[in-house]
């Protein structure tokens, strides 16, 4: 594994296992995510990518069937030991595979996180909404109809709205779970450009089905298969054929199965 001890670790995962009832989703996961990197996770369906993200922001607290074991440290603190897991989630932005525009106005969607933090001043909220929508490349399209329903935007716009909403949390860590599934290629490229800029300010975990997307964006990439981490490395090296495991090579070259 490539490690750079000098860099700050946002996530330290040691021997992490996740199970839903009798079904194991992840076993023996061991990896680090560093500050200000885009960390790509690739792998076929059922490889445990989404479960891993859900463990990071403690969604197991809402799902009694989901059991997490092992060590998962976020900003040097064990996530399970955060006394207030809501505060933990406020530091972690999540973008889901299918866009979720909450059934409230565009403005309220983006102001939601700020309001949760206790911001009440109209001016502060206005600024936050404009800033986040601008960064998510959506401001120009919606600035004249901030009062209309977020759930009535087109799929691509809703996904950018979701990203704006995640940014409004001012997150330390942004997790994107196959964000481009319901988005057209042009919008996807625009969002990818946004992500490259955001990397300066936050750490990004990018789960993707598109191998090329990981190649374009990720600094390092991990390959998950059937709940196990097969290989992790500098994206450049992996895509140059410097893989340690034949399965990674097969997957990257589309010769899988």
């Amino acid at each position, binding site marked *: 594994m490539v490690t750079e001890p000098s860099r700050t670790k946002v996530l330290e995962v040691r021997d992490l296992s996740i199970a839903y009832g009798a079904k194991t989703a992840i076993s023996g996961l061991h990896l680090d995510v560093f500050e200000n990197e885009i960390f790509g996770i690739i792998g076929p369906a059922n490889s445990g990518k989404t479960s891993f993200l859900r463990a990071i*922001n403690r969604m197991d607290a*809402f799902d009694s069937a989901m059991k997490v074991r092992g060590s998962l440290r976020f900003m040097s603190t064990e996530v399970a030991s955060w006394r207030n897991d809501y505060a933990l*989630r406020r530091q972690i932005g*999540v973008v889901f595979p299918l866009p979720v525009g*909450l*059934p*409230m106005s565009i403005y309220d969607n983006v102001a939601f996180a700020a309001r949760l933090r206790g911001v009440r001043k109209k001016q502060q909220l206005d600024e936050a909404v404009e800033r986040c929508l601008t960064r998510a490349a959506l401001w120009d399209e919606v600035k004249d109809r901030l009062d209309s329903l977020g759930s009535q935007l087109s799929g691509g716009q809703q996904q950018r709205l979701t990203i704006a909403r995640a940014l409004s949390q001012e997150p330390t860590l942004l997790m994107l779970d196959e964000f481009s599934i319901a988005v057209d290629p042009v919008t996807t490229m625009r969002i990818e450009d946004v992500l490259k800029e955001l990397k300066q300010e936050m750490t990004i975990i990018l789960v993707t089905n598109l191998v090329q997307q990981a190649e374009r964006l990720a600094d390092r990439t991990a390959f998950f298969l059937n709940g196990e981490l097969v290989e992790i490395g500098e994206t450049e090296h992996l895509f140059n054929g410097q893989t340690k495991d034949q399965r990674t090579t097969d997957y990257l070259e589309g010769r899988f199965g």
Partner: protein
Amino acid sequence: MTARFAATALNLSNYRAEKRYRLMLFSMTAMLVLPVLIILSILVIRGAPMISFEFLFEFPRAGMTEGGIYPALLGTIFIVLVDLVFAMPIGVAAAIYLSEYAPDNWLTRAINLAIINLAGVPSIVHALFGVGAFVIFFQFGTSILAAALTVAIMTLPLVIVATRESLQAVPHAFREACWSMGATRWQTIFTVILPNAISGILTGLILEVSRTAGETAPIMFTGAAFFLPFLPESVFDQTMALSLHLFVVSTQVPNVPEALPFGVALVLIGIVLIMNALSIVFRSYLRGKKKW
């Protein structure tokens, strides 16, 4: 070479079967509407001539064979209002707990089963429970309060089931999106779930009003009187009620003009229909405002 389309025998028989099933299902549905139409039209034809300002706002006279239904009308409204004060908050709160908080374990399943069973208990049994619990044990006496509480317990499942179903109709993705932003369960419920479940909660409210206004057995031992020459002054007084009054003038009092019971029934149904109409208006207004 384009193959010409020709319907096979199987195609044709499928098509005919489709038509048959459609007709059968439609006629079943029509049979459902028919009794409602018949009841309503008989009530309107025979009861409408009774309806007048005096009928609605005067006391019964001459052994309830003349005069109006004012105390019964007012009594039913009182019972419904007091009932709503108890049934709505408890029912909605229970539904929120069961839908949003309760873990899926044996206790929750037992509670759900109990709610279904509560709805299945005969109303006369609820009436006797009301006498024992509210009239005697809590010493409310035969009163509006005792009657309303008895009906509230009986009709709680309506509110709970209607509310719970409307809460569960709100897509789970909304909850996950809120939670992942650091919202607590309650913040999620209050800002996203409840506003989108409001029409289902209104349905529960309407069902509750209709049932409460119409129930006779649970209130006749606990708070509704045969005849009272005065109006109730507090919730601890007895009252007349439309449903019981209808029963009384139909079967218990001699020499009642034939149209009188129809008039009473028409007013009773009128209350329910007006509530329904109001809720439909309110719901379509809400739907115009919000929808995903």
